[in-house]
């Protein structure tokens, strides 16, 4: 599992340091050198406008991973608040909050995101909005579930009887108990969001060209599938490996937490 962590770390480092490591300007057009094969100068070749694919991938990591991180954290915040309201607010609040959550769940995430991003006009802002609005329900369900279970747990009842304030109880008992599950859900959503961002990019509703983003790069490469198939390998591979690394990290985390709890 250490190798998985290392892989995930490498990807995060690449996302942070990408622009420094990139050998070329990702937007530098070089028509004479278009659709170039991998070579010593252009390690992964060049695209239809002669731009260096490696540089674009490295810059793209920042968009794909960075945006996914931001969006999954926004979802985490919304979901936690909603879940806490459901768990603590009494029966009526619980019912209405959970039906709202069900309503949002009824729209397949990507379909809703496509509609939102498409109707509000494609762009980075609407991308963030679309994926945040559709990405908080899982957190809410987890937080609500744990919150309801904790309510009747012996030690929470004891703390209440001792006369501790709700804030202290939340800090002392609720948050530590929810953290592990939330982190596991968060890694899952992080990976899921990377897929979502590139899917929107691929459909043309995400980050707009000329910004390098893995989904849009794939969209560009698709036209040249017959002439230079290698072009479409790279961005897809980048998405797949980063999603895999994050998912495996989540699995490892879940297993180690499960082992600690038993």
């Amino acid at each position, binding site marked *: 599992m250490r190798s998985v962590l290392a892989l995930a770390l490498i990807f995060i480092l690449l996302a942070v340091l990408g622009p420094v490591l990139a050998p070329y300007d990702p937007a530098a057009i070089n028509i004479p050198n278009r659709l170039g094969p991998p070579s010593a100068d252009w390690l992964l070749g060049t695209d239809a406008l002669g731009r260096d694919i490696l540089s674009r991938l490295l810059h793209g990591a920042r968009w794909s991973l960075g945006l996914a991180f931001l969006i999954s954290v926004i979802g985490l915040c919304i979901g936690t608040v909603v879940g806490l309201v459901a768990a603590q607010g009494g029966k009526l609040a619980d019912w209405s909050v959970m039906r709202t959550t*069900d*309503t949002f769940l*009824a*729209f*397949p995430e*990507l379909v809703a995101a*496509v*509609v939102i991003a498409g109707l509000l006009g494609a762009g980075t802002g609407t991308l963030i909005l679309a994926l945040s609005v559709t990405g908080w329900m899982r957190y809410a369900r987890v937080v609500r579930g744990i919150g309801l279970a904790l309510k009747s747990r012996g030690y929470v009842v004891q703390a209440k009887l001792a006369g501790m304030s709700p804030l202290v109880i939340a800090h002392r008992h609720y948050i530590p108990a929810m953290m592990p599950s939330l982190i596991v859900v968060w890694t899952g959503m992080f990976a899921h969001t990377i897929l979502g961002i590139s899917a929107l990019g691929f459909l043309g509703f995400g980050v707009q060209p000329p910004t390098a983003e893995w989904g849009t790069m794939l969209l560009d490469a698709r036209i040249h599938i017959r002439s230079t198939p290698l072009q479409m390998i790279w961005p897809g591979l980048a998405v797949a490996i980063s999603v895999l690394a994050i998912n495996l990290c989540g*699995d490892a985390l879940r297993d180690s937490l499960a082992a600690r709890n038993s």
Partner: protein
Amino acid sequence: MTPGILGLLLRAIVVVSGAAIATFVLLWNAPGDPAFAIAVARYNTIVPTDVLDQVRAEAGLDAGFWPAFRAWIGPLLVGDFGRSSVTGRAVWPDLVRALGYTAPLALAALMIGLSIAFPLACLAAKKPGGVLDRCAVAIASVGAAIPPYWLGLLLILLFAVQLAWVPAMGARTAAHIILPALTLGLGVAAALTRIIRSGILEARGQGFLPAFTRRGVSRRSIARDHVAPHAAIPVVTVLGLELAFLLEGLLMVEVIFGRPGLGGFLVHAIETRDFPRVQAVVLLTALIFVFVNLAIDIFCRVLDPRIGEPGA
């Protein structure tokens, strides 16, 4: 049992109404003037403001949110999805035609997914932590990480471009369904394998099973009569939620393979700002999702009537 199922129905109705309102809110707040879009579609030209106002009044758009909502939802309740604001054609027949392409694809993908995932998961669950199990989990993990659109392109590259075994784009012949179904089916299989495997493992860890072994019940009977039903409940429940995954995959795959199904229908409708069509697709997916999950909830409660009862 009956009040429980009535409760579920009520819940489904609440969720569907919520979905309708949410759809309308989104469209209401979308930039651009819907009256303009409708008028352009109807008269096929830029129209003067008084005509625009007339259209707005007809569609109930000038009366504020709730009257407009009522004007919108009224026909919907009797199954009238209206007319496309771009082509002027009725939405419903077009939608049904698109569904005619999407439904077989979804079914084929589900069959492929199940026929891979089920044996793989059973094999994996035979000896948890064993070589087979690790392989199955690894395959499923990799499968779940591959974006469906990329997988689709890879399959096109391999089977349509390099080997030229099957056609890729469009939906003219029956063979056209092979690649999209495979793309989607592999993704479904990856997701299902993990769900089924953990469902079986969980069901097998139940505290009462050792007593059955000691009573002399054969391993086969235990697996069939006591493990399978207990595994079915969580598996089917998660399946219902994963339906969203299938619908998303359909959208992507249909776009990649240029199939004239719901996915292409939706993307095209969004690009042309054809609101009635967008509404129709969004509502339809929400309806499918809600009712499939309703059916699953009812199935689980028939299997175990304790679910959903207070104090269970």
